[in-house]
């Protein structure tokens, strides 16, 4: 660079445009980044198109409501996934009921009470580590502490899913609580409110939209989990209206067993169940996005 500056000829070089090789390298690398995005679009597009094409054939009112059958030789059009739809909604719903309040409370501890203390830092760090614990381990854990003593039930499945959701809800709620401006808290303290009151009536409502959308994304992830349910709810074919006792079934488990089957009808049912499951998770995700969008506009 120094040599170039002292050389009068160098000043004639066009400073706005880098030399040919550097420019092409820049272009190649930029093209590479776009290529990376396109590479990801291929499997995503492929899986969604297959899912819709094959799933739409299977789905009908009868498919969504009739009782479920084992992955056997019967063709499509005989019975459906009713039991699994009910099971998925019940089990995931109950898991959300357990994990969301606990997760939000945990985040409240981290942000409002823990401060920079060693315990709060440890919990914060371990909750992000816990998001990486494989779902199958959660299933084994609930199998050992619950199923071995009280038997298979939809509720055991909910426990396993709740263990999975807990750290995700803690992390996302914590991030949202950190964004609440301190002046809000100080204003409420100045009015003489207790800490619990400030947290419940000022801080949490201020962060509500973010917390809700984070929680819905956690629910969407949990709804698609298969591994933790294998050990906790077993699989049955009839609808089990009682969440708290007896083996249950769910969409992911039905997809898993039908996918392993050699029969065409079973595979078609797996696609139908997969489309139903993906539709449920997409709806949850879209609701989360709408909530975020609505509330960010309101607070502006």
């Amino acid at each position, binding site marked *: 660079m120094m040599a170039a500056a002292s050389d009068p000829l160098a000043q004639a070089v066009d*400073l706005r445009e880098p030399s040919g090789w*550097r420019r092409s*390298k*820049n272009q190649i690398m*930029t093209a590479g*980044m*776009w290529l*990376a*995005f396109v*590479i*990801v679009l291929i*499997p*995503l597009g*492929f*899986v*969604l198109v*297959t*899912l819709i094409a094959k799933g739409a054939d299977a789905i009908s009112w009868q498919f969504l409501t009739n009782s479920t059958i084992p992955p056997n030789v019967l063709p499509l059009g005989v019975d459906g996934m009713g039991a699994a739809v009910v099971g998925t909604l019940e089990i995931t719903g109950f898991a959300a009921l357990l994990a969301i309040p*606990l997760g939000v409370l*945990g985040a409240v*501890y*981290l*942000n*409002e*009470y823990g*401060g*920079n203390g060693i315990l*709060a830092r440890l*919990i914060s*760090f*371990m*909750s*992000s*580590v816990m998001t*990486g614990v*494989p779902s*199958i*381990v*959660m299933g*084994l*854990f609930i199998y*050992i*502490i619950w199923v071995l003593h009280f038997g298979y039930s939809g509720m055991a499945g909910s426990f396993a899913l709740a263990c999975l959701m807990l750290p995700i809800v803690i992390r996302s709620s914590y991030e949202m609580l950190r964004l609440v401006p*301190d002046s809000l808290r*100080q204003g409420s303290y100045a009015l003489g409110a*207790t*800490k*619990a009151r400030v*947290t419940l009536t000022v801080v949490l409502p201020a962060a509500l939209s973010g917390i809700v959308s984070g929680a819905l994304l956690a629910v969407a992830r949990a709804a*698609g*989990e*298969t*591994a933790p349910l294998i050990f906790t709810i077993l699989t049955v074919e009839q609808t089990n209206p009682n969440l708290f006792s007896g083996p249950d079934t769910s969409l992911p488990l039905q997809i*898993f067993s039908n996918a*392993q089957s050699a029969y065409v009808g079973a*595979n078609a049912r*797996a*696609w139908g169940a997969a489309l139903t*499951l993906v539709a449920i*998770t997409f709806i949850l995700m879209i609701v989360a996005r709408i909530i975020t969008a609505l509330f960010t506009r309101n607070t502006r």
Partner: protein
Amino acid sequence: MSTVTKADPATPAGSANPLSRRRPLGDRGFQLLALSAGLLVLVILVLITITTAQQSTTWFAGGFKDIFQISFDGNTHFGAMGVLYGTVISSVIGVIVGVPVSIGIAMLLTQVVPARWARPFVYVIDLLAVVPSVVWGLWGIIVLVPWLQKIYLHVASGVKGIPVLDALFGGSAVGGASFFTAGLILAIMITPIITSLSREVIATVPDIDKEGAYALGATRWEMIRGAVWPHSQGGVTGAILVGFGRALGETIAVALVIGDSVEVTPHLFYSGHSIAAIIALQFGEAAGGEYRSALIGLGLFLFVLTILVNLVARWFVERSARRARGE
């Protein structure tokens, strides 16, 4: 505890000290409730370790010779090495394929695409994460495996006789459901998490560094190499490790496409098995005794492995976040 409220800059949430010592019961109760919810995380992690260790004592009682063998047949052999090999190999393939793509997308979304247009791109990447594992597995076994089988056979006949390539991609038992197929599915599944964590890290690169690079006449790529990459290296390493941890524990998709046979072989197009997959597929038939104990023991093994990977990963991420804040 001081009775005077003092501004504590270390706790952004405001002082933890109340104005008076006598706080209402409800207030203290709420604090206790929040604390126990936070402690639940630690309790669950400790309980997982204790309970799985207790349930797998029968397996551990067999000693090292039992555990450090390849074969796992559910009858007399309960070795961990064969499944561990499959887990690591498929995850490494997933990382090798997934990481360049993820970092490329993260750079694209932070450095190339204008910020106001980046949102739809982010949604598309997030869609990948919303498609459940079992749906990737279903697509993998019904659509991808038969299609890849043809490609694998072509490749295998193409590399016949070439020293290293023949060992990796050749062989006579090439099949569509294999280590490599599992690795490809894993690559797709870990891309969203690596991309989003990398994006967060890259977003913390100060504008002044980037503007400085441009001011020196750098092209965008040179700016990325010279200003963005050195700054975000540590955080991106953490993001890759988080992705690797996810790949290690991924169960259902791998169970459907890896081929269900415990083997240690350099041939990547051969069928294999993984720790998570063998637990999911064989737990139902393992009625008890050493078989069930071994599967739970493998679960403990997987738990410890992913915890270690995630500890290192999060340490990298937090360190780079601290540096970005200038601490």
